[in-house]
């Protein structure tokens, strides 16, 4: 209630039903919308409006130069007959479903390690985080391409270790592992979040478990994982959505075409090619909405199943 004051001291004292109170409330609402005006404008012009427009365009044939022509579900039907589209779905799903768990496992493992390390934790934390800041840039994509090219340093290292290797960039079966390694290299951001979560786990739990004779593996599964589950859930959600949106690295490494043999034809890349090289804006809108539906569905499933495995303290489950 105290937050409903206006500038006049009188307003604070008035009873809720009094005219003064109502006037104060109206003034508060006017001020609120004045402060919110820039965001509201952006929301309608840059988010809600375009969303509705692309929903409409998804049912049209539109190339930016002629008026959109209504074609019903044709775009969506074509998607399923388009081998390059299906390829882009496959590439993206493999990247998300394989890459994200690997990246998160690496992030959790290193967070557990750092939570143990006695000295220099702050330094390691910062150093491991650094790749997350630059990993999605064009610069690193170029470096990655150079390192994984035929006879590059990765080949040298692997051959030196007894695993002969002949180039990754040109081999369709190896570009996906290369992209997943690039994603995993950026384990720092989720690691920092895991580490912050680990700090919240009460020490007494481990101490009690140790007194009861629980081994470290047992303590991990019975204390760390349940106590950390809200953070695991948060990271999983965030990283999954991020993984769907990878673009710059795929564009640079594949020369903008998704090659070799479509092995790096990520969803975003194909959407870009369809929309902005072929100018098939209706088709690309259909692609965008298909993806939005899939991401929405995945988010929904994650939230629904989270009741079963995400443990919030203070809640009896």
């Amino acid at each position, binding site marked *: 209630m*105290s*937050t409903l*004051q206006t500038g006049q001291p009188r307003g*604070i004292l008035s009873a809720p039903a009094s005219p003064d109170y109502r006037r104060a*409330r109206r003034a*508060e609402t006017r001020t609120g919308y004045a*402060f*919110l005006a*820039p*965001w509201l404008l*952006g929301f309608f*012009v*840059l*988010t809600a*409006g*375009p969303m509705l*427009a*692309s929903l409409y365009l998804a049912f049209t044939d539109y190339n930016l130069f002629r008026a959109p022509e209504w074609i019903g579900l044709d775009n969506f039907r074509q998607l399923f007959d388009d081998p390059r589209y299906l390829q882009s779905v496959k590439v993206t799903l493999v990247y998300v479903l394989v890459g994200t768990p690997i990246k998160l496992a690496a992030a959790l493992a290193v967070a557990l*390690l*750092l*939570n143990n*390390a*006695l*000295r220099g934790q702050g330094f*390691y*934390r910062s*150093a*491991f985080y650094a*790749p*997350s800041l*630059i990993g*999605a*840039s*064009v*610069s*690193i994509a*170029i*470096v990655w391409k*150079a390192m994984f090219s035929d006879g*590059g*340093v990765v080949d040298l*290292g692997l051959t030196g270790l007894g695993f002969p290797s002949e180039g990754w960039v040109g081999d369709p079966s190896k570009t996906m592992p290369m992209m997943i390694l690039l994603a995993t290299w950026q384990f720092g951001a989720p690691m*920092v*979040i895991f*580490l912050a979560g680990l700090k919240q786990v009460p020490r007494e739990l*481990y*101490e009690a*478990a*140790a007194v009861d004779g629980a081994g*470290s593996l047992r303590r991990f599964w019975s204390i760390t994982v349940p106590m950390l589950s809200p953070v695991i859930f948060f990271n999983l959600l965030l990283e999954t*959505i991020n993984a*769907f*949106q990878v673009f*710059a690295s795929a564009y*640079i490494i594949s020369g903008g075409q998704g090659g070799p043999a479509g092995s790096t034809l990520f969803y975003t890349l194909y959407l*870009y090619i369809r929309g902005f090289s072929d100018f098939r804006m209706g088709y690309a*809108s259909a*692609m*965008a909405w298909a993806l*939005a539906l899939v991401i929405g569905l995945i988010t929904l499933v994650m939230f629904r199943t989270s009741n079963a495995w995400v443990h919030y303290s203070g809640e009896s489950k």
Partner: protein
Amino acid sequence: MSTATSTTTAAALTDDRRGAPRRPRRQQGALGRSVLLHALSLVILAVALYPVLWMLVSSLKPTDEIVGDASLVPSDASFDNYRTALAGIGGVSAWTFAWNSLVLAVLSVIGTVLSSAVTAYAFARIQFAGRKVWFALMIGTLLLPFHVLIIPQYIVFQKLGLVGTYVPLLIGKFLAAEAFFVFLMVQFMRNVPRELDEAARIDGCGHVRVFSRIMLPLMRPAIITSSIFAFIWSWNDFLGPLLYLNDPQKYPLPLALRLFVDQTSVSDYGAMIAMSVLALLPVMLFFLVFQRFLVDGVATQGLKG
């Protein structure tokens, strides 16, 4: 700060209960463990930093010695690659690209901080009708994939004749379209004691004055964190400029890099990598200076990298 692990504390605790005799051996075990953990951390550090170090060293090597050379010590270091890179591409100097990147990043920071702070203040401190609905919608845009928006946004900007200008890249920043920053600032404001602004309200200050005189000065840490992220995200952005810019005179560094990749032959990595280093230099400097703010920002707000 005690960085002793929960497990070692637990071990020490049990030792105390079991009595002194076993203690020395246990401590020896803890020492061995600590050495092992440090060794492991160092190995991961080497793997995490190797690509960056390799990039820096390679930028000093002649082009034909880059790809097949894993060493981090160049045989004969020279700045030739940087000279080539700075000469620019297609008649446009590298300084022009850097300047363009800087203009975009600085304007992004100004727009993001101003608009996000005003929006966050409305959500955190003003009780207006419909607040909860708008807040939920704002959070909803956090989960929205940007793909849904790029095509209709492009059409709108194309119809308005704004393709080829910086307007499409900046307008969203001035309208608080990046919900991450609004959310970060709302969270921060919620932790500011209400007594501070309520006292001012009772003394007759309106929201505008409470916001500008009390809230903004208190928000320094949140503003610094937001500024750094807004700068780096704008600096690294590739898709936005790729969609909207078509004149190399207006290209920021990531697009210039793509031009470089397209125009030089695949094996000519020298200048390309030197240019990559130049493009990352400000980000690396920002990281070295502000790493605390960045890492703590991620830890508390869950911002992406």
